[in-house]
């Protein structure tokens, strides 16, 4: 056994660096994996040893999966959790079963990989230039002047005027759909100048929408228990909060929010309030969120309530009115206001759930879902928000764009679902 083998044996026991590739219907499952001490879900394939493929994908080759696989630093292995094997990844270890089963499979695969580091998966794609080098000029610079031409078949970036009157390079690039920094399946075709987004288009999502939680869809046509709906809302808000805290590099608080998702009870608001106070102390608003992504006329839903407008479908519901429901609003309209609202609504939802008892609401053809107004015959709120995205993101720096994407709660998967009538 050589040095590598010895080091490999030593490495077993570290949390396995996993790069998650999330298809349809797996958003919550992958988020829960972040709480497992055996795994570390990493943001870059370069940092991972195991690629975990979860959720539903369209049949045939899936766009970009083979590239992501080859970007993992060797030694690497692929694990497919649930669902059909994916055609692009022939060597994947297929696991069915729950969270424990997949964690066991990943740690086992990792231990195997480390015991013989030279036997990872080979690359899927050939390692060649996309187009042959066609440089001319004395330094191969691609043109006859100091620069220019089409090196490697890629046209040099064109300069374009930027907003401050300078001329800067324009870099067209596709971000996503497998970037863990963004919501699963979100693919952005963008043009950068510096780190400012000049053009943004939301590309097609190569995932198959999962079943989704149909509680709020059911409430369109039949009464469902208010307590159940409000607990679902609180869980949704806390999951979103955990995701926001993760991209703002507050890993400790993010885990705390995620643990709360599994521990919430009606009326138990103390823990949420303590988390809210801790976030203020951590400088979440002052350092990261204040003034970012201010919206003027957001669609009805949490984003609108964060601008101080009290639009909430629950206000018109007699059952909710019996409970003394008043919509929560926060002034500001920026990312900080949206996060404050998220926390306030979580507390309110837990209080409502405690007060409601067995009361039921629904069957009125309109319902306030966690992301906004859900109405029969109208597109789901997720689609409205996703359509709004390009307009809001243009002109933002990349870091702010990520904050906006998460605080607006963009969800490609839910945007693709149809509301059954």
């Amino acid at each position, binding site marked *: 056994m050589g040095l590598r083998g010895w080091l490999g044996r030593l490495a077993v026991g570290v*949390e396995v660096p996993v790069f998650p590739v999330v298809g349809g219907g797996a958003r919550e499952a992958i988020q829960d994996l972040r709480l497992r001490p055996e795994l570390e879900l990493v943001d870059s394939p370069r940092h991972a040893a195991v690629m975990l493929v979860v959720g539903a994908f369209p049949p045939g080759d899936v766009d970009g999966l083979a590239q992501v696989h080859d970007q993992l630093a060797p030694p690497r292995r692929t694990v497919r959790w649930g669902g059909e094997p994916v055609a692009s990844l022939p060597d994947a270890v297929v696991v069915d079963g729950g969270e424990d089963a997949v964690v066991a499979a990943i740690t086992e695969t990792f231990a195997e990989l480390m015991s013989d580091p030279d036997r990872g998966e080979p690359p899927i794609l050939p390692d060649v230039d996309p187009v042959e080098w066609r440089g001319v000029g004395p330094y191969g610079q691609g043109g006859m002047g100091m620069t220019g031409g089409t090196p490697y078949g890629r046209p040099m970036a064109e300069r374009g005027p930027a907003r401050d009157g300078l001329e800067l390079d324009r870099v067209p690039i596709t971000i996503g759909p497998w970037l863990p920094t963004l919501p699963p399946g979100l693919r952005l075709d963008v043009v950068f100048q510096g780190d400012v987004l000049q053009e943004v288009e939301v590309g097609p999502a190569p995932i198959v929408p999962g079943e989704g939680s149909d509680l709020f869809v059911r409430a369109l046509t039949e009464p469902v228990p208010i307590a159940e709906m409000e607990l679902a809302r609180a869980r949704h808000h806390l999951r979103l909060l955990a995701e926001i805290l993760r*991209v703002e590099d*507050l890993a400790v608080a993010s885990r705390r929010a995620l643990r709360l998702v599994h521990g919430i009870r009606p009326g138990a608001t103390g823990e949420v309030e303590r988390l809210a106070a801790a976030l203020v102390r951590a400088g979440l608003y002052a*350092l990261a969120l204040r003034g970012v992504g201010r919206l003027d006329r957001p669609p009805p839903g949490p984003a609108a309530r964060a601008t101080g407008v009290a639009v909430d479908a629950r206000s018109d519901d007699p059952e909710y009115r019996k409970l003394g429901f008043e919509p929560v609003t926060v002034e500001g309209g920026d990312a900080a206001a949206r996060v404050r609202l998220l926390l306030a609504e979580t507390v309110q939802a837990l209080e409502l759930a405690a007060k409601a008892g067995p009361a039921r609401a629904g069957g009125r053809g309109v319902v306030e879902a966690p992301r906004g107004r859900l109405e029969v015959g109208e597109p789901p709120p997720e689609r409205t928000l996703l359509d709004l995205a390009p307009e809001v993101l243009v002109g933002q720096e*990349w870091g702010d764009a990520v904050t906006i994407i998460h605080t607006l709660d963009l969800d490609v998967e839910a945007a693709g679902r149809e509301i059954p009538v």
Partner: protein
Amino acid sequence: MNPVVSVLFVGGVLGIGAYVVAVLDRAFGPVSRGPRDWFVWPIRRAAFLAVQRRTETERPDAEAWILAPALLAALAAAGLTAVPVTPSLAVADVSAGVVLFGAAMIIVMVAVFLQGWSPNSLFPLIGAYRFAAMALSFGIPFSLVVLTTAIPAESLSVGAIVASQEGLWNVVRQPLGLPVYLVTGAAVAFWGPFRIPEGTDLAGGAVLEASGSARAVWRIARAGVLVTLSVMGAAIFLGGHLGPVLPGWAWTALKTLVLLAVFVWSGHAFARMRVERFVWFGWVVLLPVALVDVFASGILAL
């Protein structure tokens, strides 16, 4: 000091310090698997990174990519040489010691820029540019508070600065110095709320494309920069090796450990700052505070 001993000494301090940083980071961090894990984890993690292969990107600046982590480690080492650990033991207590330290910490900007630029990839490049914007904003306040400690000592030598604190430490004499030093120091090491070039929004930023040994060396070197900042902070603000009962080296180690713990704790206590907000903070808050520090110390010295 004998050259061979010096190299071993500096390497040893940085190595042990980087290990301590990793242990503290685990202890303050989000994953809790018990105290035993704090001490084992850094070793297992290093072993994994040693096994993992380095990746290649398309047409990287290969030499600069190899150079960047080595440069960062070398800068941490260079800054460390100027600090006297005990009254008689310093690798090179040169007459312009704090300037040597300042120069080493400013060149960190070059190391981070090369690390982000060389893989020929967008997010690392944005990370590199962010750090350049940061460095220009924290560079002047950082240098000012470090150089201000030389005023009461009437010397730029770190040994003389430590000696001048016999009786009254600079943390008391220059109350604005240490807070500004801690904030800008964390920014030098792009640590905690200043993880701006390596933020999650950039999926790792400057180190996004680095794997295996390259990433391990970069991590260790960055921890080394934190160690150097703590050792120097202990020397110029907390009286270095001065202290009763215990021997000098023990005081240096103790004070360094306190500052290291503060640095590492801040890494998990605060959200990542927006780069725009940091630039504003650097020029509008830190710089005036640092200037007041210079004036107050100057008047006190007259």
